[in-house]
């Protein structure tokens, strides 16, 4: 199966951003654990790993703009809708459970983890309902 130029560009962006995420995360964990960073620098180091993740959301948006094949574009839109629905629903449920002290605290960035899981789930649903390939 041939992939569009937009899909290849999207993959390259995601690979680079994932590497950057790993680099920033390792740096932040090391710097903060060893008390090498304090004050404003600690805040900057803590936010840095979030930036490539945000950029991946942006890369998905850019892919949707650049993808010329309207059917393939629709498949990705469906995936993002499943991802958003799942992540927001779970975050809402967990939020209420947590506010009533029925479950423990979970760091908010796990919403993004669930969102990416939802993206994969959306691809599987596309496969089952439309017979679409798992990737676009």
């Amino acid at each position: 199966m041939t992939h569009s130029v937009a899909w290849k560009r999207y993959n390259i962006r995601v690979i680079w951003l994932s590497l950057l995420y790993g680099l920033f995360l390792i740096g932040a964990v090391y710097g903060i654990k060893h008390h090498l960073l304090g004050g404003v620098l600690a805040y900057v180091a803590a936010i840095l790993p979030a930036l490539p993740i945000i950029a991946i959301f942006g890369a998905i948006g850019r892919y949707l703009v650049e993808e010329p094949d309207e059917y393939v574009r629709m498949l990705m839109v469906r995936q993002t809708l499943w991802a958003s629905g799942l992540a927001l629903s779970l975050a809402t449920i967990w939020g209420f459970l947590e506010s009533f002290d029925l479950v423990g605290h979970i760091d908010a960035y796990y919403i993004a983890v669930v969102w990416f899981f939802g993206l994969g789930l959306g691809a599987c649903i596309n496969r089952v309902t439309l017979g679409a390939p798992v990737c676009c």
Partner: protein
Amino acid sequence: MENRLRVLRATRGWSQADLGERLEVSRQSVNAIETGKYDPSLPLAFRIAELFDLPIEEVFVSPARRASKAI
């Protein structure tokens, strides 16, 4: 939406990939349209009709007309 794309493609001896190449869409897009799993946008529907040199209503069956015929 019901359509005659598979028949029209077969008369030309084109594979789904061939048609996809001519329309600048993927093979799976052609397959989804042929099987009625995806309704193309108006610009793509016109591109398909123009490729076969046919009016759009000879490629795609109007759902409203199909429903009225069934009654």
